[in-house]
Each structure stands twice: as structure tokens, then as C-alpha cells.
């Protein structure tokens, strides 16, 4: 057996299969760990031809098949005769499911090449799915960053590698994480935020997020079962449904707990349970705990019966703030049409969602940074997960109509500002907290100028300024156009 290279010089693309008239037909049993088939083939045929037959029968691609007979791997270029495969004998078959391992499988030149000690260092040995190459957020310095909640939420930390690099950003993330850890309520509030729910309805996005977290990667390396789980789309969808709906989640947990306790009553069951726990659940929980700060999946968490804080909170600015939730495609279709109120044109509601997540100091500093540095915004926006968020935003017509303000559209810097405003709205949709970025404040200077020119209607001034994004001249045009002078 001189074949070392794995190429099959003797096989061209001949279509002659087991119906070959030369040689007698033999029946060979092909056995996988799961089932077995009997395949009739000419006894003179080559391994490649044999594989062709097998690939049809087993519905697998030829290069996914690895055949073993008598302890040796059958190479495509060999013949059945060479290995002594005769009628009635059994050949073992392994169907490689992961595509990347097929190369490694056929390059295992073990048996026949007893004289070729090649060290084929081919592929990534771990069973981690190929999604370990991150989604388009670029390089992954995330592994060097301290574990971060937001890195579980989509590898925002790698944005720093994209050139944002603002140290404040990372600190802000840390702050957020710390807050989250100290306040378990926050987690349920995050989940309730329609923005987050929107994100979670996209299974690919979620999967990407989970997979790019370096801790999850480690976990997956150690437990191939987890990678199986993540690769199963049905399961992912189910899990996400659960995550989105906390009530359903609790119900599920209760059912599961009941089932588990039933298991316990079977003799020997308790030990099995304990084994299961230590093998699988512990590492998963500890990884999850690091991510989420507080373990949301722990069955021991007591039921939270408190009603969540009233999102349409304190009176006065309720209609305008609901406009800010235009980010969601849920029930806010009417809310999206709310006209800007005098004091709060952009719907950045100061008292918005009360103790919403985005009222945290971290979020506020983020927004400050964003307004100061439009470039930051651009960078954030170009991340793919942001795109999907933006897509769902775009579906909301109200928001889109804002962006189409003609005067603003012609002026690029205005455009940036417009974009910024939209972003701010999005975040503020979760609750503006005690944001001090009301347009009133921002346009203070312009307002003063306008009032000095004689436009005494402050409300109208402000509206015009908002509409034109701070451009005084355009605002004046507006005012003159609308005023029945």
C-alpha cells in the first residue's frame, strides 16, 4: 500500500458503479454506530466507488464518509481487494458531521502509511463551532478585556478595537455591569425593554452574542453538549421565547423542577441527578453568573411578585415619552405619532421610565459622550447588531419621517445631528432618567439669538430649532413661514 497522499489517481469521474460488468458482485455490510446497511458492489471496485454508493444510501456527502475495515482507514485510492474486503464482511462507517473535521479525517494517514510519520497539524482541535470566528464586529480583543455584561450582549467591548477606544466607554460598561449585579430587578427590567425584546427575537443575533463571549467559548470547549444545543435552531428559538417572556420562563422552570423531583424518586435517580448537576449545570451556571451578575436561571430564585414600575410613569410628560419608545414595533404605533411637547420635543423624558435601566448613570454618560462625539455614534451604528436594531427602528414610520426632514437632509452635519437625535431617542426610549440633554438646554444659545432677533414665541422657536436641528437660519425660515405675519 503505497498510497500516502490521499489522492486517488486510479479514480476518474467514471460513472460506472456497482453495475460494472467486470468482477463479481459482493454484498458488504456498512455499519455506523447508529445503523447498518448492506451494499452490493463489484468486488473490483475502488474505495471511492464504494463511497459513492454509500453516500447515496446514507444520504451524506462523499467527503464526509470515513470507512474503516479491520482497524484501517480506507483511502479513496485503494481498492476493496487491497484490504481484503469480501462478500459478507463488515466495514465500519463514520459520517463526519462537522465540515471542518473532514480534512483531518482523511489526512489521518495511519494504517497504510506505516512509513510516513507526518505530523499533520491541521485544524482547530476543539469541537467549538466555527462561529468562534466573531461576527462582523471586527477583531476580538474581547478576550483580553475583563468580563463584561455587554460583551455578552454583543461584544460591544470589541468596538474599542474598532477605533473608538474611549476609555470612558469601557468604564461605563463596567459601571453598568456593577449596577446590574447589585440590582437583580434591573435584569427583569432590561428584559422588558421592548428594544431588548426586539433584539432577542432575532435568533442569529442572539446566537452570535452568546458565542462570541469568550467565557462561553471556553465553556463550549469543555462541554460539547452546549455547542450542540446552540446549534440547534429549534432549541434556540424556544430558549429565546423563554428568555423574552419571564413568566413563561418561570413556568418552565417549575415544570422542570417537578420533573426532576420525579426523577429523584427512581432508585439511583438521585445520583444520576447529582452527576448531571456537577457535570453540566455547575460550570454553565458559574459562567452564566459571571455574565449576568445575578443568576436568572437559578430555580432557587424566589418569584418576583412585585409589579414592575409603571413605564408610563409620572404625569406631565407621559405622551411624549411614549413616543420615545418608537424603537419597539409593539404596541406603540399610536405612541409614535405623538407631537413633541414644548418642554421635551424629542421625547427624551426626564422622568420617563423612572428607574429604568437607561436611567443609570452609565447610560447617561454614554449619551453625553454620544452627543459630544458624533463619530462614536457612527462607529456604534456600524456594528451589525446595531444594524438589526436600526432595521426594526426603520420599520417604525414615525421615526423614519423624522429623519427625512428636507432642510436637514441637505446639510451633512445636520444629518449627523439628526442621526444622533434618533439614537438618543432610542436609548432614551428606555427611560431618560434625569437626563440634562433636553433640546432646550442644547439650543439655549440659539434660543437666545432668536429671542434677541425678536422671535418671542419661545415654544415655537424651540420647535423650529428642533426641526432644523439647531440651524438658526433654517429655523427662522420656518418661523416666518408658519407665522401669520
Amino acid at each position, binding site marked *: 500500500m503505497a498510497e500516502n497522499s490521499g489522492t486517488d489517481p486510479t479514480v476518474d469521474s467514471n460513472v460506472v458503479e456497482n453495475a460494472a460488468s467486470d468482477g463479481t458482485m459482493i454484498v458488504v*455490510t456498512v*455499519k*455506523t*454506530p447508529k445503523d*447498518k446497511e448492506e451494499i452490493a458492489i463489484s468486488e473490483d471496485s475502488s474505495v471511492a466507488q464504494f463511497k459513492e454508493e454509500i453516500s447515496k444510501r446514507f444520504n451524506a456527502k462523499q467527503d464526509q464518509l*470515513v470507512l*474503516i*475495515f*479491520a*482497524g*484501517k*482507514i480506507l483511502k479513496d485510492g485503494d481498492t476493496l481487494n487491497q484490504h*481484503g474486503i469480501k462478500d*459478507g*464482511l*463488515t*466495514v*465500519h462507517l*463514520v459520517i*463526519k*458531521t*462537522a465540515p471542518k*473535521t473532514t480534512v*483531518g*479525517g482523511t*489526512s*489521518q*494517514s*495511519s*494504517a497504510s502509511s*506505516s512509513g510516513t*510519520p*507526518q*505530523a*499533520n*497539524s*491541521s*485544524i*482547530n*482541535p*476543539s*469541537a467549538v463551532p466555527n462561529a468562534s470566528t466573531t461576527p462582523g464586529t471586527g477583531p476580538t480583543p474581547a478576550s483580553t478585556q475583563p468580563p463584561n455584561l455587554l460583551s455578552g450582549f454583543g461584544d460591544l467591548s470589541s468596538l474599542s478595537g474598532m477605533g473608538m477606544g474611549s476609555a470612558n466607554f469601557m468604564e461605563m460598561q463596567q459601571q453598568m455591569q456593577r449596577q446590574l449585579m447589585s440590582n437583580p430587578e434591573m435584569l427583569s427590567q432590561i428584559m422588558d425593554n421592548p428594544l431588548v425584546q426586539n433584539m432577542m427575537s432575532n435568533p442569529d443575533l442572539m446566537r452570535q452574542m452568546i458565542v462570541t463571549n469568550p467565557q462561553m467559548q471556553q465553556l463550549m*470547549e*469543555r*462541554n*460539547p*453538549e452546549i455547542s450542540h444545543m446552540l446549534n440547534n435552531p429549534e432549541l434556540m428559538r424556544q430558549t429565546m421565547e423563554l428568555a423574552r417572556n419571564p413568566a413563561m420562563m418561570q413556568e418552565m422552570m417549575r415544570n422542570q423542577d417537578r420533573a426532576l423531583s420525579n426523577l429523584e424518586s427512581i432508585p439511583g435517580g438521585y445520583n444520576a441527578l447529582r452527576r448531571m448537576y456537577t*457535570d453540566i449545570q455547575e460550570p454553565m451556571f458559574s459562567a452564566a453568573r459571571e455574565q449576568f451578575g445575578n443568576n436568572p436561571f437559578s430555580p432557587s430564585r424566589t418569584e418576583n411578585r412585585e409589579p414592575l414600575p409603571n413605564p408610563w410613569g409620572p404625569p406631565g410628560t407621559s405622551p411624549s415619552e411614549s413616543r420615545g419608545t418608537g424603537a419597539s414595533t409593539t404596541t406603540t404605533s399610536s405612541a409614535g405619532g405623538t407631537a413633541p411637547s414644548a418642554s421635551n420635543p424629542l421625547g427624551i423624558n426626564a422622568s420617563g421610565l423612572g428607574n429604568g435601566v437607561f436611567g443609570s448613570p452609565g447610560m447617561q454618560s454614554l449619551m453625553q459622550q454620544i452627543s459630544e462625539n458624533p463619530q462614536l455614534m457612527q462607529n456604534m451604528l456600524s456594528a451589525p447588531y446595531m444594524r438589526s436594531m436600526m432595521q426594526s427602528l426603520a420599520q417604525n414610520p414615525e421615526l423614519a419621517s423624522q429623519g427625512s426632514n428636507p432642510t436637514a437632509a441637505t446639510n451633512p452635519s445636520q444629518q449627523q445631528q439628526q442621526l444622533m437625535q434618533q439614537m438618543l431617542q432610542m436609548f432614551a426610549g428606555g427611560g431618560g432618567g434625569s437626563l440634562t440633554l433636553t433640546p432646550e438646554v442644547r439650543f439655549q444659545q440659539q434660543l437666545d439669538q432668536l429671542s434677541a432677533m425678536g422671535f418671542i414665541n419661545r415654544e415655537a422657536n424651540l420647535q423650529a430649532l428642533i426641526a432644523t436641528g439647531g440651524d438658526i437660519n433654517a429655523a427662522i425660515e420656518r418661523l416666518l413661514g408658519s407665522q401669520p405675519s
Partner: protein
Amino acid sequence: MVVGARLTPICVKNCNAAGFPVCVKVPRNFRLLEELEEGQKGVGDGTVSWGLEDDEDMTLTRWRGMIIGPPRTIYENRMYSLKVECGPRYPEAPPFVRFVTKINLNGVHNSNGVVDTRAVSALAKWQNSYSIRVVLQELRRLMMCKENMKLPQPPEGQIYTN
């Protein structure tokens, strides 16, 4: 494949009072021929395979084995090739087993793939009713042990060179 059936001397032990042998030791080559046939017929669950390294080997000494990595372990989807040497005293004496494909497994020497006889119970407590299949299956079982199933493995396709 032609193999001469050379008989090694039969030691008939444990005769009863009438002189009839109670327990016969099967000659080595008969045993090995039997194992060869089993290997070709795929006896077992299809997760291990074995056969002669060289079909012309009259002494039936050098064998090749293959273990398919058990699922849900780090060995999943890989195939491990082994060399098994059945000495002249087989099956009274256990065979020598060594991995050809690089593997990180407790009981296998990292440098050359030799399987430590004391680490594998089938080898340590060898009985003449054991066979190559038993050894291979035991090694596969070891791969599924908690202490082994998550050991980081060298890249696929590497083999020991010594």
C-alpha cells in the same frame, strides 16, 4: 490471505479424574484467527475495529486497531488508530497496545502513545478470555470517563513518531 495454521503446543490443564480435559487452552493462532474473523465481520457495536496490520503476517502478531471517539466527549468525531502486538504467549499474556494517533488520555504516555498496562484494567487484570476487541472497547470506555472526557487534545491528524 493465507495463514498457516501452525499449532503451538497445547497444554491441557485441569483434567478431571477420568482424564478428560475440563478446560482447554485454545492455541494461540486459532484464537487470533478467530479474532481476525470477528474484526472483519464487525462483531461488536461498530465503535471499534481491528485487523491484521499485514495480511501476509503468518505469526498474526502485529495488529491494527481503530477507536471511534465517543460522542459528547472531546474525542468525538475523531478516529484513533492503534497498534496492537500479540506476543507469543497471547492469549495468556496481554497484548502490547500503543496509540498511533496522538491522544491525551490518562494511562497513555504522552511521548510515544504507549498504553500503560497498569492504567487499563483489561490489561492489568488480563484474562485469557479477553481479546483485542475487549481492550479497544475498554480504552474507548476510558475516553468517556469524567477525568478524561474533557482533556484538551492535540490537533487532529497528528501521530506519534517514535
